[in-house]
């Protein structure tokens, strides 16, 4: 549906060239929720703003339904933009307009007949659940309510795609949760494809099907959420996973335990999360596993669990235990100060 092909973006800043994006390619399939995650400065905001050409690529192509947007006239580009809704971190509503006006004005300016405007405003304000706020001004609304109005404003154009530029970053955790549920519902019930960027792992974890991890203007990992986050290849992806679990072991304790055996991180995904693999280890090998920390969470509606385990015993036996766990479908990694390395 949306495809970025070898996108490079260079900003000129005081005669110095700053490369915001470097040869980025990714493809958002119709009907999916695609998340781009990265720390600030990774270039993800530039990327999402390129989907509707708010930002023009220095080189490369942006395709929407097969059309290259960089080749369109401004009139044609405006037509395409109307099929792509966009919401922002700072909501960007008219301060001087009521909720009704905020949704109705853009429709009027794009030539929607006035009778239909009224119907659409009522239809979409109901979807976001703010029917009773039509006469309120943005200043009278909470952050979450403002974002709901912005979502209704975007949906009222009946777009095929919704672009979300850090849409939940200014919201508290509970409000974030409710906005994410709304986005998920929009994707399922209205069939709208969503491309979102975020620096919050829980956003990706809760609603995305596909994910790309960005760093320094490049996509360093991409694929299905389960694949990328069950076997993170880069440290950045690992750090995002770590943020889900919050199970860092204090350094002193770690040092002490290292003397008496290996410390491993065991991840279970989906079906394997139910098997008693760890219990088998004690029976089969001469090691005593003790659990230092553990957690289970959802990765796109599949259980994703992780245990930090101290395997008390000789290196040899511990390694056998690790091999056994790997064979039973558990992902095993060495645990070092919160960073994971391949356990061999």
């Amino acid at each position, binding site marked *: 549906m949306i495809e970025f092909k070898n996108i490079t973006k260079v900003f000129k800043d005081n005669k110095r060239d700053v490369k915001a994006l470097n040869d980025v390619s990714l493809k958002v399939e119709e009907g999916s929720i695609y998340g781009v995650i990265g720390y600030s400065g990774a270039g993800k905001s530039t990327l999402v703003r390129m989907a509707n050409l708010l930002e023009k690529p220095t080189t490369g192509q942006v395709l929407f339904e097969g059309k290259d947007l960089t080749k369109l006239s401004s009139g044609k580009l405006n037509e395409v*933009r109307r099929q792509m809704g*966009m919401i*922002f971190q700072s909501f960007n509503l*008219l301060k*001087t*307009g009521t909720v009704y006006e905020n949704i109705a004005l*853009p429709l009027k*300016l794009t030539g929607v007949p006035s009778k239909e405007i009224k119907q659409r405003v009522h239809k979409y304000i109901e979807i976001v659940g703010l029917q009773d706020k039509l006469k309120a*001004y943005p200043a009278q609304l909470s952050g979450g309510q403002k974002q709901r109005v912005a979502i209704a404003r*975007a949906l009222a154009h009946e777009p095929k795609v919704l672009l979300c530029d850090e849409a939940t970053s200014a919201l508290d955790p509970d409000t974030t949760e409710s906005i994410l549920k709304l986005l998920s519902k929009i994707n399922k019930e209205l069939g709208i494809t969503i491309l979102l960027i975020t620096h919050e792992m829980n956003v990706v974890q809760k609603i995305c099907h596909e994910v790309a991890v960005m760093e320094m203007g490049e996509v360093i990992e991409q694929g299905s959420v389960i694949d990328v986050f069950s076997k993170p290849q880069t440290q950045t992806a690992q750090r995002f996973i770590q943020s889900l679990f919050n199970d860092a072991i204090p350094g002193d304790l770690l040092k002490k335990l290292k003397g008496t055996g290996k410390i491993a991180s065991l991840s279970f995904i989906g079906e394997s999360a139910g098997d008693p693999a760890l219990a088998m280890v004690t029976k089969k090998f001469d090691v005593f596993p003790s659990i230092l920390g553990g957690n289970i969470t959802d990765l796109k509606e599949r259980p994703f669990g992780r245990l930090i385990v101290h395997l008390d015993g000789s290196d040899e036996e511990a390694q056998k235990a690790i091999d056994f766990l790997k064979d039973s479908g558990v992902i095993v990694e060495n645990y070092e100060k919160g960073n994971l390395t391949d356990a061999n």
Partner: protein
Amino acid sequence: MLTSVSEFIDNWGAEIWVSFLDTLIMVGISLTISVIIGLPLGVLLTLTGPGKALENRVIYQALNAIINILRSIPFIILLFFILPFTKFVVGTTIGVKGVIVPLVVFTAPYIARLMESSLLEVNRGIIEAYEAMGIKTRHIIWHVLIREARPSIVLGLTIATIGLIGATAMAGLVGAGGLGDLAYRYGHLRYQADIMYVTVIILIILVQAVQTIGNRVSAKLKKD
């Protein structure tokens, strides 16, 4: 006391009323023309500035220079300095007609600057949101940029109006009348202090009224 007040009104009431109306007419006409010229210039300044939607160095720098030059000249000098231009535009250099041209030349660049600063206050994000919705630039200018800047534009126009009221006081020099002229001719040249006091009081009330109305309208337009 009472008789002297009624005597004063009998003697001067008509003249003060006419001068008051002259001031209002001069302010009204020049303000209208100045807004018609100044608002688009302010929009142009905002849009052609560095890093803006229609960035254009030549237009921006030229406008900037012209506005700065016109704003450097005090009104009393401008009034005489542009006499040939005034004559060319309206065919006369005296009376209300003759003073409207310098008043506009004085006020329009000022309004352009005030508009520019009001428009620059509008959050860039909201303009971007409308661009993302595929809305034409001219619609964005009117329905987003100017609409959102309205409370600030009204306050700017209030400042401009009060400046204009001050400038009209000098209009008497080209025989255009008005309250300033009245105070100058009778109050200063003929030492009739009571005329001077009364016109000053009327001007104070006028300025207070303009400021109060401006503040009220701006507050009403502002929704946050």
